[in-house]
């Protein structure tokens, strides 16, 4: 529904009123910003001496190294989580019950546990067996962060891919078996490529979550961007106070810029996918860990992602109606995070026996 339906095109009186509200609203927001800036300026956080510290090469190098470390953790954790996600998703669609159960148990366990708990447990584990682990023991903070991120996000990516498998029409799988393709061929030539293509925006959005969560390295004192910034602020005394405020501003801007760039990529791919007429629908660029509706195959064409765009609603209502009988087949609610094995957990492949 376009939000403009909620109110009429304003007449002269309403236009006047809206203008007054606008002025008051703008004044309030600007006033708040001014008060914050004034207070910070009063405490000397905008003094040139304070900001001049960012001109020193060692400060710049600290921040650069922090960014590089964060990106290194993100790259490795992202790749590992995608590999693990594919493995788990394939295992969860397996014909063999023990494999399926193991994968399901792994996915549900690690999705339900806070990432911080996993990372901390891995870190303590690596610290305890430091001598026996070689390279991992040496770099315990790095590997705890990377493996923790990979395990948690791998479990989420597996669920995303499973939603992608479910979005592939069953007739395609049946046709493939009728042509004599093997299970592995159906998976690698038919299901995976289409699942990846349709879920790409969601996969990238989950990578944004991975990038944001690299900042948990702060808590296990691994010097990625946030911890490096904290150490920098902690050791730099200018005009009698530590430079926490400027460092938080700089580091925050860097994080927001990195995440926005990646989110923009996801949205761009989603828009691009919507333009094409062929293939299965491209999923929303929403973060599956926070909004599980995107993992529900029935919800893929739902207008959640297109929110704000006009003219989507008339399409959405009949689409939901059409989904009715399909949803009644199995007990798959729009719930994504319940840990309940769904009715269709055999997956499309299991259907072919």
């Amino acid at each position, binding site marked *: *529904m376009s*939000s403009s*339906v909620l*109110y009429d095109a*304003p007449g002269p009186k*309403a236009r006047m009123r809206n203008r007054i*509200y*606008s002025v008051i*609203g703008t004044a309030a*927001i600007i006033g708040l910003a001014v008060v*914050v800036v004034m207070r*910070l300026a009063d405490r000397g*956080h905008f003094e040139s001496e304070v900001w001049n510290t960012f001109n020193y090469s060692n400060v710049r190098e600290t921040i650069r190294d922090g960014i590089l470390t964060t990106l290194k953790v993100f790259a490795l954790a992202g790749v590992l989580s995608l590999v693990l996600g594919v493995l788990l998703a394939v295992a969860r669609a397996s014909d063999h019950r023990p494999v399926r159960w193991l994968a399901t148990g792994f996915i549900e*366990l690690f999705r*339900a*546990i*806070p*990432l*911080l*708990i996993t990372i*901390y*447990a891995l870190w303590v*584990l690596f610290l305890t067996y430091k001598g026996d682990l070689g390279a991992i023991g040496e770099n315990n903070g790095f590997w705890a962060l990377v493996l923790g991120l990979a395990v948690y996000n791998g479990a989420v990516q597996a669920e995303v891919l499973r939603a992608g498998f479910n979005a592939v029409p069953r007739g395609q799988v049946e046709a493939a078996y009728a042509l004599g393709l093997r299970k592995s061929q159906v998976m690698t030539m038919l299901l995976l490529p289409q699942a990846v293509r349709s879920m790409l925006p969601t996969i990238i959005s989950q990578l944004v979550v991975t990038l*944001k969560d*690299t*900042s948990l390295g*702060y*808590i296990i004192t691994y010097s990625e961007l946030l911890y490096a910034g*904290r150490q920098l602020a902690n050791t730099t005394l200018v005009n009698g106070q530590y430079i*926490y*405020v400027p460092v*938080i501003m700089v580091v*925050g801007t860097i*994080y*927001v810029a990195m*995440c*926005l760039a990646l*989110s923009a990529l996801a949205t761009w791919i989603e828009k691009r996918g919507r333009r094409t007429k062929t293939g299965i629908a491209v999923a929303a660029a929403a973060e599956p*860990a*926070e*909004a*599980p*509706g995107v993992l529900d195959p029935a919800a893929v064409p*739902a*207008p*959640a*992602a297109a*929110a*704000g765009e006009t003219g989507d*609603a*008339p399409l959405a*209502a009949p689409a*939901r*109606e059409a989904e*009715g009988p399909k949803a009644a087949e199995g007990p798959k*609610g729009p*719930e*994504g*995070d319940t*840990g309940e094995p769904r009715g269709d957990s055999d997956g499309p492949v299991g259907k072919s026996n």
Partner: protein
Amino acid sequence: MRIAVRTGAGAPCPTTAAHEDIPVNVLLDHLAEFREGFIGTVWLTVASSVLALLLGVVLAGFRVSPVPPLRFFGAAWVTLFRNTPLTLLFLTIWFAVPQVFDFGFDPWTKALIVLSVYTSSFVCEAVRSGINTVPLGQAEAARSIGMTFFQTLGSIVLPQAVRTVLPPLSSIFIALTKNSAIAGAFSVTELFGWQKVLSDQGFAIAWLFLWVALGYLVITFTISGLFRLLERSLEVAR
């Protein structure tokens, strides 16, 4: 809930070895602290859920309102807080916000504020996409019988949006439960704090991990169960 945790704890560790050697009964020996941490997590989750829900609905109202600065404010809020790591927000309220305000907060209140503000941006987006799924004719009909913006939103659109908003809200609150673990690292009493303190005392991390995971599982399953009940009671035949 607590009883379930207790009996679950007794079952797999019947050995009564001294906890210095084989600390399998670490939970039984530190049950009081565990209970404190568990209640801490539940309390923090509940309080910040309520605050995040209120903030999120108000922000969603801002985002569909006829007043441009409010729409801009809502959009800026959502973009900013969805793209900032939660740990950075914790650092901000611990080190930067006290520079603006003269009065301080205790760690629990700070954690409450951070978690609610962060979660409210996700709630706002969920509510807004819920508003977008209400059929267009509903708002048109409300407008044509002369309802104002607030009446249309408050008595026609939002009540119908509730049904579509519930499933995403359920997982937003589950994510909030998990995010509250970060508060434990900032000296708020909750389950991660329990794990950290006991692991610093040298107890085996595997067992601590298991018990803390179980605690979180109990909370998240309760949330998804509650939401399923709510969904069922709000279900209507179409």
